[in-house]
């Protein structure tokens, strides 16, 4: 448990460096604001990124990796609509490996290699969960597009003119949509 203890001891600095790294995917003017503004309602992206990073590191140190903290879930939801490629949107999860190793010290990692392998496996689990969430969010977007189309709003600019009967028929169809496609 030497390394887990080292992660716990260094969790603040690891989360900070991880946050810095995540924010490099935004323009520096945006990143500066996302890091500086602490009000969660004035800066939801920065808040979720910061809290998500801190709590994820805490969970990793405690070996609790069965799910992601809610703030990171929200942050991934945002990444899923920010036009990143999937590898860019989720790739930051893997950066936790290098940052943890660097902060805790390579020598310590080498001396406790089997424990380090277990931590790396935990980070992989977290990253795969992030990927699952990302895909679920993408599927949700397609579902919402379809539901909006069915609601009648889409007719505004498509020259349509459905009667009330047609609209009611569509609305009555409570179809459980299962969108299966990749992004």
């Amino acid at each position, binding site marked *: 448990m030497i390394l887990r203890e080292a992660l716990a001891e260094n969790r603040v600095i690891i989360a900070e460096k991880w946050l810095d790294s995540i924010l490099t995917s935004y323009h520096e003017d945006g990143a500066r604001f996302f890091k500086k503004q602490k009000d969660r309602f004035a800066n939801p992206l920065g808040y979720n990124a910061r809290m998500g990073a801190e709590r994820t590191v805490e969970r990793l140190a405690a070996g609790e990796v069965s799910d992601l903290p809610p703030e990171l879930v929200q942050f991934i939801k945002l990444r899923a609509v920010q036009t990143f490629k999937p590898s860019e949107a989720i790739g930051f999860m893997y950066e936790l490996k290098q940052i943890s190793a660097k902060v805790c010290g390579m020598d310590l990692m080498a001396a406790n290699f089997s424990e380090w392998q277990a931590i790396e496996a935990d980070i992989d689990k977290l990253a795969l969960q992030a990927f699952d969430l990302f895909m679920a969010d993408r599927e949700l977007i397609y579902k*919402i597009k379809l539901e909006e189309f069915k*609601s009648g709003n889409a007719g505004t600019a498509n020259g349509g003119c459905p009667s009330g009967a047609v609209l009611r028929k569509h609305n009555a169809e409570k179809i459980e949509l299962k969108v299966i496609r990749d992004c």
Partner: protein
Amino acid sequence: MADIKADELGTRVARDPSMMTGGVPTKEWMDTEAVFKPGNYCYQGKPEVVDYLRKELPPGVFGPAHEWDIESDDWNLPDNWKEIIVNGLKERLDKFRSLKIFMDCCVRCGACADKCHFFLGTGDPKNMPVMRAELMRSVYRHEFTKAGKILGRMAGARPMTFKVLKEWFMYYYQCTECRRCSVFCPYGIDTAEITMMGRELLHLVAVNINWVLEPVYNSSRTGNHMGLQPHTLKENVEYLCEDIEEITGVKITPSWNRKGAEILFITPSADFFAEPGIYTCMGYLLLFEHLGLDYTFSTYASEGGNFGSFTNNEMMKKLNGKMYAEAERLGVKWILGGECGHMWRVVHQYMSTMTGPADFLEAPKSPITGTVFENAAATKMVHISEFTADLIHHGKLKLDKSRNDHRIVTFHDSCNPARAMGLLEEPRYILDHIVNKHYEMPENTIREKTFCCGSGTGLNTGEIMELRMRAGLPRANAVQYVHDKYDVNTMACVCAIDRATLSALMGYWVPDVEVCGISEMVGNALIMDGEKEVRETGLRFEALAGSEGDADV
């Protein structure tokens, strides 16, 4: 900045540009180009639509219709397009003093920079309101200021080029004219008006989006956004009345185009045909029946929304004028307006000098309470929430608010009613009397500081759904908070675009929260004469709290 770099990590596999502007810019802002990709732009206007509107309005307002591909580097523009834009800017600087002031008076204090929901959801600095204005200011300086002409880029000036035009199209269609930034500007610079001018100038060379133009075209021809003809419009409302009868046992027969009615009622046409607006419309119908109000709908003025205000001032004037022309034709005393957003900005801020004065109408006076709405003395048009709040204040409505006990509500201040007409208290006063539980979102996200739905000004179209979701993040984030803290399951609002777009936004960010108009809940709570002994469902056939009914939830 980070210690660990991407090349060191080898984990960021994709290295191509990714942000909506085409990548994390590494160049000065003037050198960073707008890159259009599917999903980050709205579809261009259909040539036949542009052509029709061009013939409808004075020459030069809409440029000649043409086929063009947004992703291409050739937009098939007229040869003299730069001259058209620069002359158009000059004309508007002379015509609108506010534009001239806004071009000159910004001191780059940065108060607005982090107040825009597009910036908060993207981190793109060109979505900072100050930068959005700078896109036009830079051209203004180059063309119309000595410093700009002499010093050029050193003075923040640049000539009008195709790259600039693309940038304008990108960012003037990433602004919802919500005016949150203007609340924080010490000089009162109204970025919405800069965006309006930007869009006007783009229209001069027929660079536009269909989601705005086709509703304008439909409204201009048939009276409403969707182009519903009179019989269809009437039939849609009859369907709603059938549902009302099934739910409440009360039969309602509204009147249409009736001359001599006391009041003309105008609402956004989405209330006639789109969910969840139709439930709000059912609320209006129940309220008017409850009062025995002498009112009429119009099939000609069947649109409260004014997408013309998202094109140019001439189109806005034409569509606004229809409402008053119809009021005069029908001989009503005054106009009652439904739950709409930008309709109220047009009415409160532009109507009286643009279309008015409406001297042929009377100062609005509630026939039920006798209240004279002096705030509407110039426009002769009263908001349904003002009207309803006054009724409640005078004890004229029989209400059972327990019928909304299945709803735990938060109120979203729609941008235009909140910031353009100051409608802050009335909806909350109504909520106090129609629901038992309603909770405010955090202070810096409501009232005059309210966050936009992210899809206003004609950006409520499906092809930019991801853009809408990231722009709506700050709003959704505040809703998430009250949902987690108070189990809020309903977001109430007084805007048709909100009702449509917040439904999608909640579907993505806070799926357990439904969106509804205030008037829908008024309709639920109203105890009608001759109604069923027990009302088992709400207006959308949802089960009421404690109901055993077989509701179609």
